[in-house]
């Protein structure tokens, strides 16, 4: 397990909330930031702040070097072939919308199919819904197995020769399920479809190798992996990105502008209209350094261990239901649950009064909530800075909540 000293890099964790030391179990929503990232942002604004790709002055050069250096860092982090395949965006949502609006717009026709699953986050449902409506295409859902996993048989049965796009999350933000993306990509390709991966919950926790996965697009956010908010990445295979039109037009992304016609910069800049998210990229680079120093394999192992410990300890609570695969080996560090007779909001408030931050609600996955036949759930999600003690606190908090609602009333 990861050394407990890791906590000391996260100043935010060193505080009391409602009179108790903070236990932060909401990293699937956003992770906390280590001093290395906070310091990188501060240094950038204190010494290097300037616009990129235009100034000939020293600060302009430094900012450009940092920004493009961050791109190289991301390329290496996800094992992309070239930095031309790494586009900085605001986050996963913008990245998925870009694929739908650019690739989808040009390649999906009436009667074509787009395949997603019941477990998708809203940001990997609605762009495709909109595209399907606009084009008269058919949006198809792969059903889930009883334990909230995907079966390749069902994936195979849903994808057809008419399928143009398959877009599936790598790790579920509710069930914690890790999906067999490599195999699904192969099925998509056999049918002539492109594979889009929502990697928002994967990039922070697993080693990502887009070449090994062979996916065509991969989207993720910086803020869930120790980086700042407002920065994310769209990876795309170069040959696809080259054919695609930008969706945002204006400064930075142009080559030549005439009165009535213009041409675009080459990749990746043609997709980065306007002043880019420079500090965000600098912060993301620092986050990648931080994660790589620990080691993504170590992080994945740590989370499996925490999930296993949490599932084991939580199953001692009477009337507590955990959703998703029973085998902790099949899930990332996310445990979503409900306690009989206590609504998840009430649970979250009681936990908050004990200094424990969890998420309660539908987690931007309303179709999945419907599939689970619940209106809301509570979710504890873990990251590098969490420990077994945090889970012990959670379990004690849950017992308190049960006692409060069942005995006090």
């Amino acid at each position: 397990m990861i050394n407990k000293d890791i906590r000391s890099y996260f100043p935010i964790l060193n505080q009391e909330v409602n009179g108790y030391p903070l236990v932060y179990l909401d990293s699937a929503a956003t992770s906390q930031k280590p001093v290395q990232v906070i310091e990188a942002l501060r240094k950038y604004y204190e010494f290097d702040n300037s616009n990129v790709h235009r100034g000939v002055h020293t600060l302009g050069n430094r900012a450009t070097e940092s920004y493009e250096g961050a791109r190289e860092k991301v390329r290496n982090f996800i094992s992309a072939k070239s930095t031309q395949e790494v586009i900085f965006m605001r986050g996963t949502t913008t990245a998925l919308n870009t694929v739908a609006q650019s690739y989808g717009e040009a390649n999906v026709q009436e009667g074509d199919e787009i395949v997603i699953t019941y477990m998708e986050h809203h940001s990997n449902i609605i762009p495709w819904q909109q595209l399907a409506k606009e084009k008269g295409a058919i949006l198809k859902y792969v059903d889930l197995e009883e334990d909230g996993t995907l079966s390749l048989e069902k994936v195979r049965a849903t994808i057809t020769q008419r399928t143009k796009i398959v877009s599936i999350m790598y790790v579920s933000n509710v069930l914690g399920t890790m999906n067999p993306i490599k195999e699904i990509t192969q099925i998509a390709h056999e049918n002539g479809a492109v594979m889009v991966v929502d990697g928002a919950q994967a990039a922070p926790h697993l080693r990502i190798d887009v070449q090994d996965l062979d996916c065509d697009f991969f989207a993720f956010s910086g803020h869930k992996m120790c980086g700042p908010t407002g920065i994310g990445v769209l990876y795309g295979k170069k040959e696809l990105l080259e054919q695609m039109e930008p969706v945002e037009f204006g400064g930075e992304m142009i080559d030549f502008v005439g009165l009535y016609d213009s041409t675009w910069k080459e990749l990746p800049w043609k997709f980065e209209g306007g002043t880019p998210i420079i500090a965000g990229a600098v912060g993301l680079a620092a986050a990648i350094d931080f994660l790589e120093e620990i080691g993504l394999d170590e992080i994945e192992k740590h989370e499996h261990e925490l999930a296993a410990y949490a599932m084991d300890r939580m199953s001692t609570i009477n009337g507590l239901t955990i959703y998703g695969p029973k085998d902790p080996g099949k899930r990332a560090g996310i445990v979503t649950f409900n306690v009989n007779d206590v609504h998840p909001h009430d649970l979250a408030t009681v936990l908050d009064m004990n200094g424990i931050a969890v998420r309660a609600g539908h987690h931007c996955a309303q179709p999945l909530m419907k599939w689970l036949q619940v209106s809301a759930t509570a979710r504890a999600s873990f990251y590098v800075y969490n420990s077994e003690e945090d889970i012990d606190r959670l379990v004690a908090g849950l017992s308190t909540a049960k006692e409060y609602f069942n005995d006090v009333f």
Partner: protein
Amino acid sequence: MSFKNLDQLYRSVIMDHYKKPRNKGSLEDGSVTIDLNNPTCGDRIHLTLQVTNGIVENAKFDGEGCSISMASASMMTQAVKGKPVEEALNLSTIFSDMMLGKELDDSIDLGDIESLSGVSKFPARIKCATLAWKAMEKGVENESHS
């Protein structure tokens, strides 16, 4: 831990309304039907009102949500039943003020509703408490325009 902080939020009156909701169900002959949800958390209310000659004759609710949202719906339906529309809307304004933590006029007797005053100390939960009231306002508004 001590339950002192929580007791500000979860008074026994609230839990009583949550566990034994008043006016639960749907009016078949209701003149107004409103469905409202809280998109951030999935709470949902289905409210039916019978409004005749400017009087809220009857009110029933259905839905799902946390103890605060459901107890508030139970109390709201109880409070507006039999009241003129204007008075129901006035009550809703008083309720909003209470959620904002404003001092209330001593002469106002809110009955059970007063037990929800502690919610103002829990900003994340104010939307839970106001859902049913927003639905009522919307319904009464529709009725006065028809």
